[in-house]
Every structure is written in C-alpha cells, then in structure tokens.
C-alpha cells in the first residue's frame, strides 16, 4: 500500500495568552492507520485534537488536510468527527435521533437514514436500542452510541478524546477490542488521545509520545517500548530499570562497576549515557551465575508474575518480573542478554536517534 498522507502539521505553534502549549510541532498522519497521542495531562495532546477537529486555530504554522490548508475552516465543514471524553450525547434526543443528527443535517432521505443508523448500531453491537433514551443507558452503552454517532457520517478521520477514561477496566478492554476491529474493518484513520500507556500499546499502529508541548518520540508500539529515546519515554511507557552508565565503545557499556556487551553503538567513546532494562528481561539465577548480584527487598504477587524489588551494592533499585519466587533478604543473581540492554543518550533529538539506529542495525 502506498503512503497517503491525510493530515500534516507544519511547524504548528499554539499559545494561550503567550503561554506556549504546543512548541513547533510537525508530523504526518497517514490514511487508514490507528494513531495514538500519548502523554500526561497538560502535554498538549487535546490541543492537537481540537485543532484537527476545527475548534482551535494554531497561533502559527499550517495544518493540511489531504494537502490543502485547513487552518481557518470551521469544524462543521471538515470531514472529521469526534468522540468526546464525556460522550456529549444530546440528552433531549433518543439513541436513534442522536445517531441520525449528522445525517439529518445533510438532508439525507429518511429511508437511507434509517438504514444507516441500523447499520451503525449493529457495528457497535447495540441493535434494537433505537428508541432508548440516553438517560436509560449505561456508561459503556453511551460510549458506543457516541462512536456510532461519529462513524455514521463516514468521516475520513475519527478523533477520540480519551473516550475510555470513564469506564471500568473490563469494559475498557472490551472497548479497546471493539475500536481496533472497527478501525480495521472500516479503514478509517483513527486518532486516539490517551494518558494510558497500556491502552496506547494495545491498540495503535503508531504512537506519538508527547511531553510539554513537544513530540518526544513517535513510532510503532514495539519500537517505542523496546527502544525508548530517553528517560522520560522509558519511564512513561511500561516499567523499567534505568541506571547511569558509560559507553566505553560501540557494543560495550559499563554500569554498576562492570562492563557488559550490548548491541547499541554510534556514541562517542566514554560518553555518559543511561541504560534501560525492562523488568521482564531480568532472569532470576544464583548469585555466582548472575551478571548482577542483588539483595531482594520485597516481593508482590501480581497474578501473572511476581513483582520483586531488589537493591544492588551501589544502591540502584532493580525491579524484576518473574514467575519464580524470591525470598526477601536473600542474595540472588540477575542475568540478561546483550539485546536486553537498551542504551539512551542524553538530549538526543528524534532525527539523530533514528539515524543512529539505522546506522548500526544492519
């Protein structure tokens, strides 16, 4: 499939009363993919969404839709629909009229509206709920009505503003599957905004990690999880052990006073760096076999695994996820493979990071 760009942000800056919310953001959204804007509250992700929907104009920079500038085009003339965080269903209308709202405005014939609404309800598995009042629906059902109301207009782009944040865990997982399958089936581009990294990893083709009005890293969930660009991303996505280290030379890194082979390279000799090892990559072993020797501090049963907290002699904390038990107070060894070590440079830009990965990942 050839790459078709739907939305382009070109050096977009947004300020509220001189307070920058977005600091020079550029990115492209391709057709037919599931994107996630991930970041803590106040990072600017909702601002980006509002600008795409047409509720906000950038202070400077351009927003393009299929190559055409849309900075000043109002929301009601954009082929974009939004699922709002609080669903924003019209309380004075029933389910049918809520979903038909956009179609009626387009003056579509009655028969066709009825057919489309039925189809939309089928899509979100709410067949037969046409006559229900919104007040009679549960949170999860309202959520699905909101999705149907947006999708029935056949937008080129669907925006979802933290739509699952008000649902309980089980419903949430269900909705994640539903959203993902809807996106695949319809081939519509989705942009999903969330602060929940698990949600982002589970659903997306592509994740943009945001912090303080900047895109810190973008890439597939696997790329971002396995190769976070810096401390912030590593910490925000999943759980991680991050320690200071020195890059002796390519593929040799020193931390906790020992040298280990790794698979990273492209830094200056003896450059100060940080190293990430994911908790699930650390394997419990005997102290004499371990690459690291640590003392077990505590152990929690998490269902799928035990969460074991350990301290090494230098005082670094190591978090281990293991199906094996470890007795608090005992000394154990931790082993890992060279691929499990991920080295991060300080203040590396995304371009440099990507270029460096390209250069040695042959």
């Amino acid at each position, binding site marked *: 499939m050839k790459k078709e760009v739907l939305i382009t942000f070109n050096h977009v800056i947004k300020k509220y009363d001189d307070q920058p919310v977005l600091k020079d953001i550029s990115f492209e959204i391709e057709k037919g993919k599931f994107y996630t804007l991930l970041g803590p509250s106040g990072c600017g992700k909702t601002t980006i969404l509002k600008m795409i*929907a*047409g*509720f906000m104009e950038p202070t400077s920079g351009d927003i393009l839709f299929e190559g055409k500038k849309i900075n000043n085009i*109002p*929301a*009601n*003339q954009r082929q*974009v*629909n*939004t699922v*709002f*965080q*609080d669903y*924003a*269903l*019209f*309380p*004075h*209308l029933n389910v049918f009229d809520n979903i038909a*709202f*956009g179609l009626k*405005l*387009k003056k579509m014939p009655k028969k066709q509206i009825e057919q489309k609404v039925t189809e939309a309800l089928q899509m979100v*598995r709410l*067949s*037969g709920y046409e006559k*229900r*009042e919104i007040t*009679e629906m549960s949170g999860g059902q309202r959520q699905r009505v909101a999705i149907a*109301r*947006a999708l029935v*207009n056949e937008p080129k782009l669907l925006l979802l503003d933290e739509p699952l944040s008000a649902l309980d865990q089980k419903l949430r997982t269900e909705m994640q599957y539903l959203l993902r399958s809807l996106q695949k089936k319809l081939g519509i581009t989705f942009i999903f905004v969330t602060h929940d990294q698990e949600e982002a990893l589970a659903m997306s083709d592509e994740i943009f990690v945001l912090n303080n009005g900047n895109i810190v890293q973008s890439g597939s969930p696997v790329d971002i999880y396995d190769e976070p660009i810096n401390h912030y991303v590593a910490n925000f996505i999943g759980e991680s052990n991050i320690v200071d280290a020195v890059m002796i030379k390519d593929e040799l890194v020193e931390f906790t006073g020992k040298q280990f082979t790794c698979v990273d390279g492209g830094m200056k000799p003896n450059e100060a760096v940080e190293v990430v090892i994911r908790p699930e990559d650390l394997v419990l072993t005997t102290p004499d076999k371990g690459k690291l020797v640590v003392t077990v501090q505590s152990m929690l049963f998490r269902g799928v695994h035990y969460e074991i907290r350990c301290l090494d002699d230098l005082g670094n904390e190591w978090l281990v996820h293991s199906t094996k038990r470890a007795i608090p107070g005992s000394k154990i060894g931790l082993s890992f493979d060279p691929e499990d070590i991920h080295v991060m440079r300080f203040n590396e830009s995304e371009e440099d990071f990507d270029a460096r990965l390209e250069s040695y990942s042959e």
Partner: protein
Amino acid sequence: MLKKVKWSQLYLWLVFIFLYAPIFYLMFYSFNAGENMSKFEGFSWIHFQELFQDTRLLIILLETFILAFLSALLATIIGTFGAILIRRFKNRKTRLGFLSLNNILLVSPDVIIGASFLILFTVLGAWIRGFSLGFITVLLSHIAFSIPIVVLMVLPKLQEMNESLVMAAYDLGANDRQVLLNVILPYLTPGIIAGYFMAFTYSLDDFAVTFFVTGNGFTTLAVEIYSRARRGVSLEINALSTLVFVFSLFLVIGYYFITSDEKKFKKSKKSQAQVESEVPVVK
C-alpha cells in the same frame, strides 16, 4: 421524638393559618348577602352576579391577561437570548458584570423602576407625536422588568449544559442556527418554560410599575382593584378575588398533575425498558 414532630406540625399549621386567614376572610364575605364586611347576613351569589354584569371589570380582566401573555412571551424571547449571550462571554469579569446588572434590576424597588419609566415615557412623548401613556407603555415596562427574571431562570440550565454538546453539534456539521435550534434551545426548554410562567405571574400581579406608566385609556386588574378599594370596598372585588384564587388553585393542581404524569410516564417507560433489556440482545 413524637413530641418534636407534633411541635413542628403545630408550627406549620400556625404559619399557614396566619398566611391564609386574610384571604379566606375576604373570600368568605364574597358570599355575603349584605353590602359590606361588617356583618355576614346570609349566603348569596349576588356579588358574583354583579361581577359578571360589570363588563368594564371583565374587559380589564381580559386585557390584563393579554398583557401578561404578550409581555411574558416577548420577555422570554429577549431574556433567553440575553442569557445565551451572557454565557458566551469568556471573560469572567464581563460575564459577572452583566449578570450583576441583570440582578440589580431584579432587586431594585418597583416604585423606582416605575418612576424612571414614567420619566422616560414622558420624555419620549414630548419627542414622538402620538406617543402617550397606555397599553404600549405598560407592555414595554412589563417586558423590561420580566427580562431579568427570565434570564435568571434560564441561566442555571445554560450553566448545566456542557460546552461539548455544542462542540459535538458543530462537529456533526451543524451551522450556528442549527446548533441553536436543534441543541441549545431544546436543552433550555424547561428553564424557558419556567421563565415564561414566572414572567407571566409577575406581569399579572404587578401594581407599582403599572400604576406609574398607565394612562387614561388603559388599566390592569391590580390598578383597578386598588382604585376601587380606595372608594370603599365593594364585595364585587371579593367575588373577583375568590375567582382569581380558585383559578390559581386550579393552576397549581394542574401543574401538580402535569409533573406527576410526566414522572409516571417516565417510570412506565423505564420499566418497559427493563423488560426489554431482560430479553437477550441478538448480536
């Protein structure tokens, strides 16, 4: 515990007796066969018969209702849009400023409002040929003092409305007019209706403002009763008061039935919905 309940009941009874006694006293004498309230001389409908033969009073009654109907209608339209516009101010200070201006009118004494309108209308009368005190001036002043009431009744509903509802309507392709007609106004309807009835009753029983701005040709029930009462109370007024009281009583009862009907209706719908949801949904 028991004693406490009894005391509170006694208290309420006393308050209500105190509040209702003058009205019932007045109504009681409307059935008097005699000519005044000094002595009850026996039951008769004679004052009601007098009332229905008094075409002047009946016309005034009709005009008062037309005035209330019209002024409430226009005040509701103006006030609703006023409330929507006040809500639109993003700046908190301007919004509160406008709201205070609105509320000042609500609490300022009718006498002052009436006097100021009288001055305004006499000035206008000097400028514009054919403009004199009468129905129009009363209508204008009633609209004016009703607008703040409507604003006050509509605003809470507006504040309750989530901004995302409006955004959702735009998002689905609605233009400004469609957002207003299809989303904002339906949402505000309960507040608008409440505002209308408030304005209606305020207009119906206003005396002070009307007294100032009414001319020779036009008078309302309140002003008429006042001027008749000054000449010595005729029991015809008592008969009219009885009828008005019964009318308001029916209004209250009607309101009660409408609201309880609505609740019952909603409840039955809900139970129906529950039955439906017990049937397994075919996926």
